[in-house]
């Protein structure tokens, strides 16, 4: 059973929303129903997120990401369609039952941190448990543990304003971790941070995920971030899903020009792995080649492939040779794939990105 299931979700703001849904379900673009005076934020979105997966929703500003994620925990009711959490249709729940479900199953991390400025870091982290009525001593202990986990053990009694942006978002993360829900929603959680700090936070999230095995729905407008974090990525454009796939699928088989133009800016060497660029090594004598793991990013192979004479051997855990990575293989994989359509002109692309 998927942890999260979105089933033909629509969210249209405005009085004549249901009329708009009918039109949109026939495939009309949202700009063609402007005369209805509605904003179609999310249009016919369906996906499933498996337990333990990091599912990234990627799209430009205004593509409906925040609206979508807020429907997943019922902060916004969908205009049409259903959301299932562990098999429960949350759109059919009463307000009270929905609140209980949020408290137990889904927590959220916000773009601008959304910490409570009048509560200490520890009290912020303990909030979810406080809402659930957990006794004071226990919730403080668990919040302290989560703060230790994100490296803020020494800042418990400070107020959020006294912390830097990166640290504040760690508190936001600790607040979600303390609530101890299986699902965490993250709406552009790292977008407001400086690039270096953002990288640290991404690394930390990947590590935490490896330890705790949460189901994470992560929203971003940055494809590099999506590629780095996501087990699978859902690309949104103007409220509709353009493509859902693994980072490599998106990179190597973009669904259309739009996705292809995005992928141009991606550092392919960090997304592609040894396994995805290797060539068959059938019959070759790989005994004294250097060994690499299949999921090593290509970026980490440059140095090694350059410093030895032969190719690198990609081996599994039993040291069986799966394939060979040669400098030529790397170079040709780094070039954009043939079926990915190149962008027409640089100027137009930048304009698109700004919109």
């Amino acid at each position, binding site marked *: 059973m998927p942890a999260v299931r979105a089933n033909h979700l629509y969210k249209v703001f405005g009085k004549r929303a249901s009329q708009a849904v009918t039109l949109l379900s026939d495939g009309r673009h949202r700009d063609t129903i402007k005369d209805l005076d509605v904003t179609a934020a999310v249009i016919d979105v369906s996906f499933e997120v498996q337990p333990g997966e990091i599912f990234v929703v990627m799209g430009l500003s205004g593509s409906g990401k925040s609206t979508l994620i807020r429907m997943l925990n019922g*902060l916004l009711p969908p205009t049409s369609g259903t959301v299932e959490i562990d098999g429960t249709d949350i759109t059919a729940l009463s307000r009270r039952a929905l609140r209980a479900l*949020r408290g137990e199953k*889904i*927590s*959220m991390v916000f773009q*601008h941190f959304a910490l*409570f*400025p009048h509560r200490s870091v520890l009290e912020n982290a303990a909030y*979810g448990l406080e809402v659930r009525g957990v006794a004071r001593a226990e919730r403080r202990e668990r919040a302290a543990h989560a703060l230790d986990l994100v490296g803020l053990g020494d800042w418990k009694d400070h107020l959020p304003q006294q912390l830097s942006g990166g640290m504040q978002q760690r508190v936001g993360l600790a*607040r979600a971790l303390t609530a101890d829900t299986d699902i965490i929603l993250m709406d552009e959680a790292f977008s407001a941070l400086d690039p270096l700090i953002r990288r640290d936070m991404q690394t930390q999230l990947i590590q935490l995920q490896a330890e705790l095995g949460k189901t994470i729905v992560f929203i971003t407008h940055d494809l590099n971030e999506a590629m780095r974090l996501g087990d699978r990525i859902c690309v949104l454009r103007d409220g509709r899903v353009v493509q859902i796939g693994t980072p490599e699928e998106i990179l190597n088989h973009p669904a259309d020009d739009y996705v292809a133009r995005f992928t141009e800016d991606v550092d392919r060497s960090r997304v592609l792995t040894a396994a995805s660029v290797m060539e068959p090594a059938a019959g070759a004598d790989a005994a004294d080649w250097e060994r690499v793991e299949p999921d090593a990013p290509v970026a980490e192979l440059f140095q090694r492939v350059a410093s030895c004479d032969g190719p690198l051997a990609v081996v599994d855990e039993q040291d069986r040779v799966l394939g060979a990575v040669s400098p030529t293989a790397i170079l040709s994989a780094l070039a954009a794939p043939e079926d990915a359509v190149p962008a027409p002109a640089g100027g137009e692309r930048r304009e698109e990105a700004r919109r």
Partner: protein
Amino acid sequence: MSQLLPFPPRLPLGEGFEALNTWLKTHFGGVFDTVGAVIDWSVTTLRDFLTDPQAAQLTALAALVLAAALVRARPVPVLTVVGTATALYVAQAAFALGNTLVNHAPPHLFLWAMHLFGQDSVDANLVIGIVALAALAAVAAVHRVRLPLVGAVTGGWLAAILCGWLLFDAVPGVIAQPTATLTMLLLTALAWAVAGWRLGVFSLVALTVVISIEQWDNAMATLALVLVASLIAVLVALPLGVLAAYSTVVSRVLKPVLDLMQTMPAFVYLIPAIFFFSLGAVPGVVATVVFAMPPGVRLTELGIRQIDREIVEAGEAFGAPPLKILTGIQLPLALSTVMAGVNQVIMLGLSMVVIAGMVGAGGLGNQVYQGISRNDGALGFEGGIAVVILAIFLDRLTAAVARRAPQARTATA
């Protein structure tokens, strides 16, 4: 042609208003009487406390402050103490139970108190207060919560009692108005603690001036009236402001009503106020409440509406019910704006006191009004100066509270 009605016809607006008032008074006279009695009692009690503070009242006040500060951290013992003390106060008021207890206790237990306060009998209310205060301080000490505050409050209480003893018994005759001086020192200490030494010094000097121009009792009567009126105004404004923040419809309906309340010449309120509550402090308070309330509503609404949407969402996302979001997130974060509203309410209330003086509300307004009617410039001026001093004192004090409140206007995007 001459039979045609003139256009526009005369609209009986004023008559309608009168009729409505009469209808209200005949059908709900009891309600108005009760409300009036409560207001009257509050103003009188507060005025008496401010003009002549009793050690028992000071002690009860200190205990109340401690209880409020500690109740969240240690609810069970604190509420037990407060409940017991309240029961004892009630028993004392109803059957003089405290007196019986005190009279049967070993006398030397209370001799020190009799000596300290120069009385020939022990005030049972004072004993109850001291026991409650000590119990609360003990709770704080045992659990080590909010010790600095507890120290400050008990220390301040001791200082006030000592001060009273000094003024009344140790150096009798030196201070012309010992009760006024005691209250003045208490207000100064409050200003110092809340707003810093500048306001402390200002209070010391300015309030001494009020004493020396012999307007102290009037100033305290006015202060009591303004505080009660402001309290009522805030109690009404807060829920209205919350409703307006939650519902655009309520907000739209309230807006013109508030505009009307604020721009209608304040004198106009006096007529129905007297009609409902007869002369005295009560119509003054009621007219002041109506006139001073609008900024309280407006700024409460603004304070809640301007909170970063994401922060409220965060509460919802963790499953907090609406009431917990209101009391735990929205009201605390709106507090600085709400306090700005309270500040305006108090200022508007003060500006009403002279008008309220016309209906016999007493206090400084009365002095000014007498100055006008007797053509006594000196009296009017002294009354006016005292109003100004009160205004500055209250303004700076509430502004300081507003500054201390947490800010929630983080970046929105």
